[in-house]
């Protein structure tokens, strides 16, 4: 079955630590890839997206993600997290429909 997997359920980091959140998908063919973020009490917002071209995409607030086709992965990274990055992060894949991973809760300790 087609699915989107996020490996980490809850990640706790201190400020200035580096972040990498995993995302793998099982779809074949052409896909569009997204990372969405949901800050406490707010709605889902787009962080970054990949449609084609350079597999390293940069998003808002210093986030980036790398699409590795051979690994069916689209991991999210940030070199130095801030307390304000505390949120839930969702990976999403569009093949015919958009499917979301279960999400990773990030807690950044000040």
């Amino acid at each position, binding site marked *: 079955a087609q699915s*989107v997997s*996020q490996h980490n359920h809850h990640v706790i980091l201190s400020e200035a630590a580096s972040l990498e959140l995993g995302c793998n998908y099982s779809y074949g063919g052409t896909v*569009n890839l*997204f990372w*969405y973020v949901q800050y406490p009490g*707010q*709605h*889902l*917002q*787009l962080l970054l*997206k990949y*449609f084609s071209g350079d597999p390293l995409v940069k998003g808002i607030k210093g986030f980036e993600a790398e699409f590795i086709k051979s690994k069916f992965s689209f991991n999210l990274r940030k070199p130095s997290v801030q307390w304000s990055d505390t949120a839930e992060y*969702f990976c*999403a894949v*569009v093949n*015919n*429909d*958009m*499917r*979301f*991973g*279960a*999400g990773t809760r990030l807690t950044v300790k000040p």
Partner: protein
Amino acid sequence: GAGVSQTPSNKVTEKGKYVELRCDPISGHTALYWYRQSLGQGPEFLIYFQGTGAADDSGLPNDRFFAVRPEGSVSTLKIQRTERGDSAVYLCASSSDRRETQYFGPGTRLLVL
């Protein structure tokens, strides 16, 4: 500019009752989606509209769930004979095209007692 809006923001109902949830998409977006998000889970696809028609309703869990978009703009998700298991946040999103970025509303938190 105006984003996606959803009303009500919260809805409490009793088991067996009928509820309607409304979504007002971004103006000009032809694609509209409904999702359901349970605690600790990612959004789960319910139904997709392209214009006025439901292009994909494969995510609707059963025939108690129905959605309409009669004029190709506002959409209403209708749930009949609600059950406690229907309690969740119902999210609406819209986009300019099916494969493009979806913009989400704040959701309606439904609680079935």
